[in-house]
């Protein structure tokens, strides 16, 4: 029995090695390099050899491991389940703890510029994840063009702020409204499509918006992008070291030393508040009839129709609300960067947000936070390995689908219980 297994595993790993050689031989082993403007091939056989050995040996051990696992099936309990159970039990306390931590975070001793930037970036992704969670997690509509609404929000914020000089607090709702309207406009024709067709069409829309932003030079300055987007002010008090004559600034008003971190901390709180509003809104609307109808549509559209639920309008509201939050996040992005260009709104951004939602567990708000920390952390850790980090990211998406297709937190809580009402 054991000998047979080893023999089989050796055979299998040899086969794996041959396939690996075919896969990595030409692409990795023969790197094309331009020399004097002519492409020549630069062999890298050592790397290929290492990869092939790694694959073959890896396959061997996987074979033996899975065999052993089959022998003691049922004993193992998955880590994900344990985490999910723990979060179920202590959900409320953890949420309060997490919010408290994020409030005091800027005053932690280690929270320097680098950490604050990462925190702001993560918070932006969390907000985007929460926004898209309405569309994908609750309504079950796979939207691969979410970045388009992010872009619409960012550009409409930037254009209004630059051309009309309106303040952040006026431009923010306008940008959200614009993005929401865009959501309705795009959603109207496409929302009756089947799941995978919808995914492709939303992807196409996302790309169309980007191409439009690239080529509509008069409005968007094309690839040059929009510069000089006004920074937000603290209720009219700007964050500036040398203000214009007679203008009170944040540090003079509060009698503080000027410190560029003040603006960063303000931005951090701004996105924290925006994200928490998104979260509160989602939690609430999920318990309203419309939220329940979203989930019902995700479960069975035909049954919904038979009960008189209007599928198109219901989906449209999900699409529009999700788009609106994308637009809010976009305005924040614009005001933080003070510069936006179409380069920030590529398909890969949509893919990252989708991955955050799916990994988190469709519809789970806490899951979005966990998966953002994991995925954005992953991308940050591999920061110095440019394209390898995206390989790792894509690989993570595949692995998650294989091992936990329902995400980290797959359990859903009913929106209404008889215990409370009966």
């Amino acid at each position, binding site marked *: 029995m054991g000998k047979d297994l080893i023999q089989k595993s050796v055979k299998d790993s040899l086969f794996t090695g041959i*396939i690996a050689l*075919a*896969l*990595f*031989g*030409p*692409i*990795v082993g*023969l*790197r*094309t*390099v*331009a020399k004097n403007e*002519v*492409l*020549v*091939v630069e062999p890298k056989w050592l790397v290929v050899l290492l990869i092939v050995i790694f694959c073959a040996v890896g396959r061997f051990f996987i074979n033996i491991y899975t065999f052993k696992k089959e022998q003691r099936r049922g004993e193992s309990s998955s880590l994900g389940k344990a985490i999910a159970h723990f979060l179920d039990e202590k959900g409320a306390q953890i949420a309060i703890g997490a919010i408290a931590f994020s409030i005091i975070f800027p005053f932690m001793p280690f929270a320097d510029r680098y950490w604050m930037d990462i925190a702001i970036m993560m918070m932006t992704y969390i907000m985007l994840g929460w926004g898209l969670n309405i569309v994908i997690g609750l309504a*079950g509509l*796979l939207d*691969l063009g979410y970045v388009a609404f992010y872009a619409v929000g960012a550009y409409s914020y930037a254009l209004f702020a630059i051309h009309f000089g309106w303040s952040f607090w006026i431009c923010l709702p306008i940008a959200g409204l614009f993005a929401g309207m865009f959501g309705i406009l795009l959603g109207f*024709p*496409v929302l009756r*499509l089947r*799941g*995978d*067709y919808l*995914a*492709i*069409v939303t*992807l*196409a*829309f996302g*790309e*169309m918006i980007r*191409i*439009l932003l*690239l*080529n509509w030079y008069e409005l968007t300055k094309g690839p040059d992008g929009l510069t000089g987007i006004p920074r937000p002010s603290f209720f009219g008090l700007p964050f500036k070291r040398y203000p214009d004559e007679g203008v009170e600034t944040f540090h003079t008003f509060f009698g503080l030393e000027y410190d560029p971190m003040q603006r960063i901390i303000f931005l951090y709180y701004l996105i924290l508040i925006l994200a928490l509003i998104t979260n509160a809104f989602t939690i609430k609307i999920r318990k309203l009839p419309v939220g329940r109808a979203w989930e019902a549509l995700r479960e069975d559209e*035909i049954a919904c129709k038979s009960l008189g639920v209007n599928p198109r309008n219901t989906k449209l509201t999900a699409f529009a609300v999700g788009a609106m939050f994308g637009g809010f996040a976009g305005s924040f992005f614009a005001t933080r960067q003070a510069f936006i260009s179409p380069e920030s709104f590529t*398909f*890969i951004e949509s*893919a990252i947000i*989708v*991955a955050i939602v*799916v990994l988190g567990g469709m519809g789970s708000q806490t899951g979005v936070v966990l998966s953002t920390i994991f995925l954005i952390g992953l991308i940050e850790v591999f920061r110095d390995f*440019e*394209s*390898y980090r*995206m*390989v790792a*990211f*894509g*690989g*993570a*998406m*595949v692995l998650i*689908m*294989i091992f936990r*297709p*329902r995400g980290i937190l797959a359990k859903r809580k009913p929106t209404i219980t008889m215990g409370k009402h009966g």
Partner: protein
Amino acid sequence: MEYFLQQLINGLTLGSVYGLIAIGYTMVYGIIGMINFAHGDIFMVGAFVALIAFILFALTSIALPIILILVLLIAMVFTACYGWTVEKLAYKPLRKSFRLAPLISALGMSIVLQNYVQAAQGARIKTLQPVIQGGFNFFKDSSFVVTLSYLQIFIVLVTIVLMAVFTLLITRTALGRAQRACEQDRTMTALMGINVDRTISMTFIIGSSLASVAGVMFVMYYGVIDFYIGFLAGIKAFTAAVLGGIGSIPGAMLGGLLIGLIETFWSGYISIEYKDIAAFTTLVIVLIFFPTGFLGKPDIEKV
């Protein structure tokens, strides 16, 4: 008129490339009902393998026709390995999972392939010296000379030959029968003693080799490639598959030609900056108003 003719020639050439990629989409959709998002990137891998092969053969003194055949074969074999592996790793474990899982897995695989090629081959654009030069010129006396290059003839001819072989394969062989049976009912096919896993694997292998041929043509025709070409070409080829009627193989070829024509005429007569918008708009319009395409079967909602 001359200008129109030139666009027609260019469109048909481009359309052949799209058509070959589209077959992969349509076959996979037919057999396992999923959009193989990574298929465009498989095409890109094929183009890279071809590029490397061409560079290596340029150092030898083998005659051009033999080089062409060898490059086609090499590209098909190595790219087929990619198609096979992608299916085994990313799709097979998900056959019984919820409906969006394979799509998301495919998306991840597409990201992996793009960035892997970028890491291994560099992010720079790669240029290949023209392999086949020259062609026929028509209307030499008029202001616009129409060119039909040998390369264009080669591309269209190879496409026609492959289509013929492929049609025979599907309609006449046991493999083709097994594939058609799997499309109808996979469980039942398995009960009839047909190895469904192997049939699906073969589908990916065939689809990937056809895509790699498209890759060979692409690298010869444009002479420039980078790791990102698969994304756009993939969407356009998918549009072609839908336009022709997803699941239908002649439809995929027809759709490919149409998309090629739409794109070249759009760039020739309307605007070259927005040429990708043409394909996207076609995709959206077709999916919304015409979801069964030209040769697809109507999809009656089972209640």
